[in-house]
């Protein structure tokens, strides 16, 4: 296993997080590495790699990047008029109601669209937030509420209603830009207007190996005093090393 053989370009986030996801490579921040060899020592694997390109100065083997707050990221991202976002979302929901007819189908479609968005947004989230690997689901939930919601929607959520074993909690949103100027007519009973949000969370978490179930508990458009999304961790898929080096 010489260093020249089969070098693979990959990217490290923190010390442990390795991916060959091509989208991450394009995400911009961070560093590109070529893995040169992997040695097995006891139960641990030792990676030897060289840095191919880097935007920042690296000391030692680990990029010294600190996690950034949701406010700091939101202040630096490209932002647009929220009315455009809110009205576009509203127009999409209205068109879907016309085309799909069944409210239940619209709920499903919004969730699916959110899922597709979530699996892409997670890359931007990881690239811009510099968060390192979360130790448990509790930390993951906090990061989503404080950093995730803030950097995209400009609002923060609070995390409550933890169950005893720490695998289920709620995100509570008192302010939600999706529903500015929205009132649901009586014909839309059963519509989860913000269902795209639950899809986004489910999709994003699945990309970091967490299978979740996301359901609405409270909805201001249905007369509740806040939006509450319950997130239940179903399964944590162990991360696989993304290469077979001994082929």
């Amino acid at each position, binding site marked *: 296993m010489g260093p020249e053989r089969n070098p693979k370009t990959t990217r490290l986030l923190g010390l442990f997080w390795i991916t060959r996801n091509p989208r991450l490579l394009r995400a911009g921040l961070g560093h590109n590495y070529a893995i040169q060899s992997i040695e097995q020592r006891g139960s641990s694997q030792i990676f030897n790699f060289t840095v191919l390109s880097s935007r920042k100065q690296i000391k030692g083997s680990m990029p010294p990047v600190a996690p950034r707050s949701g406010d700091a990221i*939101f202040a630096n*991202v*490209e*932002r*647009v*008029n*929220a*009315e*455009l*976002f809110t*009205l*576009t*979302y*509203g*127009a*999409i929901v*209205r*068109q879907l109601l016309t*085309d799909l007819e069944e409210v239940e189908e619209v709920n499903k*479609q919004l969730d699916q*669209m959110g899922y*597709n*968005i979530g699996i*892409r*947004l997670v890359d*931007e989230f990881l690239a811009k937030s510099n968060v390192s690997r979360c130790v448990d689901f509790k930390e993951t939930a906090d990061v989503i509420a404080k950093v995730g919601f803030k*950097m*995209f*929607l*400009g609002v923060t959520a609070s995390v409550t209603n933890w169950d005893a074993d720490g695998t289920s909690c709620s995100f509570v949103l008192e302010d939600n*830009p999706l529903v*500015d100027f929205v009132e649901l007519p009586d014909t839309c009973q059963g519509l989860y207007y913000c269902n*795209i949000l639950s899809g986004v969370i489910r999709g994003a978490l699945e990309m970091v190996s967490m299978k979740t179930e996301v359901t609405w508990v409270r909805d201001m458009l249905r007369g509740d005093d806040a939006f509450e999304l319950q997130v239940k961790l179903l399964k944590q898929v162990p991360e696989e090393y993304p290469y077979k080096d001994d082929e």
Partner: protein
Amino acid sequence: MGREVSESCVESLLTEMVSSYCNQFYANKPELAARRIEAIGYDVGHRLSERYTMERPRFSDHLEAIKFICKDFWSELFKKQIDNLKTNHRGTFVLQDNRFRWLSRMSIDPSPENTGLSQDSSVALAENKATQATNMYLYFPCGIIRGALSNLGIPCAVSADISNLPACSFVVRIKA
């Protein structure tokens, strides 16, 4: 300054909306998908222009209304104005944005001679698909402009021209 969200929110939403209509609902009927996407844009444009003109006097003629779209309306949406406005003085206006934001992150091959001549037919097909996706995407801003003008009492047809990328021209034909 009003409320803002990250630009990724709007971009993701538009991408997902276009892909739902083009690849899922009307995979084999692009003209129907186009009509739905335009209708969504129309709805957005209609409501936005209602909001942005609430405290204004009525526009005295078509040109005044078009100028409003080029300046105030475009600035609200894209934080810049339309760069160039041309008219034939017979009801056709061409609004050119030299760097249209919604296309700036799309990869489009601007050389038209590539289409159909490529040796590898799968490459040609992929390029064709990309061009088609871009065209689908553009029905949305065309709908926004048509909706905004129709709210101002000006029925029209709007099309987009991207032959000079990254510039994008919107051609407005006012119905007599």
